[in-house]
């Protein structure tokens, strides 16, 4: 349970900071102040300022909102698409299963970042598009896990018994199969949060993610990378935030994984 505690602490602190962003920093994250451009960390600006004189702490806190919203939105979308498809494929099997899973395979045939890059160039950069893209290439994973879980469950005796008694397909799906998939899906979703945050950062670094001046960790990191020799402090905040958040979600996911004793 030790792991779970560490993960929970990291994630809760993160959420608290995000919600309290307005209280914690008196600065506006997109207001420029030419007089105090590229200042190293000080009491007034604990994480320094960027090239346009914007307070890095304020940007980091408000950026957390953008990044976490993107991550959460993407994961919810992934589950919303992947879960029903996985359940249907697993339960009905046969041709339905084949068609759905081959479609999933086609999406899985693109390495994640590669697919995201290709789609981003078509629909253009921006926060909303980032999570649309992540959902497009993320759902097949959820569908696969769900399908495996459902298949496993369907073969069990009690399902056959329910069928004999006259339970409808929807009843079985809703009462027996769906609850059984939730554990693995939750584990994967938690781990997926980390992956999504990393991918957002990479897309922003490549210049096709969230656009300036709106703060998101990825675009802040991308900006910082360009000035690393001049203003290394620009990297500390967003760098630590990305790594810690990913770590937090991964640890939590693992803890849940171990607690539920599921193999995925």
């Amino acid at each position, binding site marked *: 349970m030790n792991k779970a505690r560490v993960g929970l602490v990291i994630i809760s602190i993160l959420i608290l900071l995000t919600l309290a962003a307005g209280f914690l920093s008196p600065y506006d994250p997109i207001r*420029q102040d*030419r007089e105090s*451009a590229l200042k190293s960390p000080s009491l007034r600006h604990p994480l320094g300022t960027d*090239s346009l004189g914007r307070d890095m702490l304020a940007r980091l806190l408000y950026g957390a909102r953008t990044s976490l919203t993107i991550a959460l939105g993407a994961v919810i979308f992934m589950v919303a698409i992947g879960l029903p498809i996985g359940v249907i494929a697993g339960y009905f099997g046969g041709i339905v299963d084949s068609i759905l899973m081959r479609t999933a395979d086609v999406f899985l045939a693109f390495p994640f970042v590669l697919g995201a890059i290709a789609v981003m160039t078509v629909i253009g950069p921006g926060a909303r598009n980032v999570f649309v893209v992540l959902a497009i290439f993320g759902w097949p994973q959820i569908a696969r896990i769900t399908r495996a879980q459902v298949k496993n469950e369907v073969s069990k005796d009690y399902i056959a018994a329910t069928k004999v008694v006259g339970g409808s397909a929807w009843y079985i799906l809703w009462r027996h199969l769906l609850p059984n998939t939730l554990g693995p899906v939750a584990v994967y979703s938690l781990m997926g949060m980390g992956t999504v945050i990393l991918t957002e950062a990479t897309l922003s670094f490549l*210049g096709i993610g969230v656009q300036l001046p709106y703060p998101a960790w990825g675009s802040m990191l991308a900006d910082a*990378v*360009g*000035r690393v*020799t*001049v203003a290394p402090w620009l990297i500390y905040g967003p760098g630590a935030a990305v790594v810690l958040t990913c770590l937090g979600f991964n640890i939590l996911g693992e803890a849940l994984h171990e607690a539920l004793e599921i193999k995925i």
Partner: protein
Amino acid sequence: MAYFTSNIMLRFIIGGHIKEYRSNRAVSLNSLLRASLFSLVAILLLVSLSACAEKDASNAKQGGAFNYFLGEPVAIDPAFAVENEGMQVTKELFDGLVDYDPETLALEPAVARKWESNSKGDEWTFWLRRGVKFHNGREVKAADFVYAWDRVAAKKTGSEAAYHLAPIKGFDKVQKGKSSHLVGVSAPSKYVLKVKLNYPFADFPTILGHPVFSPVPKEAVKARGREFAERPVGNGPFAIDGAWEHRKGIKIKRFKKYYGAKNYVDAVNFKIIDNDQTGFLEFQGGGLDYSPIPSGQIKATVKQFGSNAIVGEPQLGLQFYAFNLRKPLFRKNVKLRRAINNAVDRKTIVDNVYENAYLVAGGIVPPAVEGYGKPAREYAHSTSRAKRLLKEAGFPGGRGLPTIKLIYPTGRGYEGPAQIFQQNLKDIGIKVDLEGLEFGAFLKALRAGKMSMFAAGWQADYPSPDAFLYQLFYSKSGDNLIGFSDKEVDRLLIKARQAVGAVQRRRLYQKAENQILKQAPIVPYAYYGTSVVYAKRVKGFRRTALDNTPLDRVWISKD
């Protein structure tokens, strides 16, 4: 000791030569030529006198390889020279009829040893130097220029740079595929090239410094076919070593039979890097001898590298906002245009966004062109004056004016200046909406002409006021996207093109520039400037106003 003496004397004389050359621009082309030839002879004499001393010195400078940061060029075949990276390589591989002095951009003889025109200025004769060799060992003759120019102009070549040849007689026919030969170009003898133009053009020799006019050996083009574009055979101080490795590098090595002064470095490795930041790190890690400075790091780099960072030298480029004069609101109201010109705080743009690497632009032709940069009329930053003009224009405090939409291409550094512009206009009561467009969409929007204002940058290919004034403001020019049309300006520009005397020509161009500024069809705000850095071990490094580095004069210190 002798080394120092001769070097100082050399510099003194070369300096004098340049000065003389500059002042002589005022007289006439012939006397100027005579003067420069005279001083050339004087220098040669001096060089031969101090030959012994000089030999030691040059030996000390000889050898080594220079590692150069290069973006992936579009092409290194001179026929397709359209952008900087390609031209940097092409200029080392090829020598045209003329060249530019790296310091002043004044015209210098190269393969042509002298030239003159008829009195009208529409027929030119070039006398070629003997003993100039292609890298395959064959001598360069006048016929090679005829072949090369026909090749550039030909329809099937499809060169984007072909328009440079447009003044030459017969260009349209060749371009349309109706003929394979430019009737205006002929080689009456091995070493004489004659060119007939469609109209008198006194600055014609100046445009010949562009790499697209380089000679190419027909036999190599025929034998190599497509391969020629990857492994061209030129006549410059360096020859290509192996083929162009795309996105990776280009290697060139000293051409031993070069006709000019022996270059110091044995080889140049162009390392192809697509990202300024990576290149700059590579430079700091010692893998490069030259790198551009990424934006935002200029001041810090100057601090760290001192005089090895070359920052703020004027280049042949202008950034400006243009009014869409097809819209009646702007076309009819010169006071409104002047008010906006006075409202813009050019100094803050240059200070804050460009870290003073660019220069405040008062006029249109940048100071990199001799005798320009400080026009008679300049718009100073004055909010009160701008407000007064706005009132006179009929919009007191901006009342009655619609919101102005300014479009700009994204990812090219226009975002910063545009935000300052927005603030400046807000100060006098004008509301501005900014809209960034992807470059293709931006060009499309320009053509459709629906915006009220647009941001643009203009980079000239050769050091002549013509490249700015005629191309942007002549009413029938294809690049006049502003919709500017003024009979007096048209008349002055044509007269300037035909004027043979340099003084008279300059006066006409200056007059035209002032006439344009009076009409205020654009808001010029910055001249492009250099921001590059080179390694401590490198000596003799120079960045020209054409944004390239002549690599034949660079040497590497051994200690």
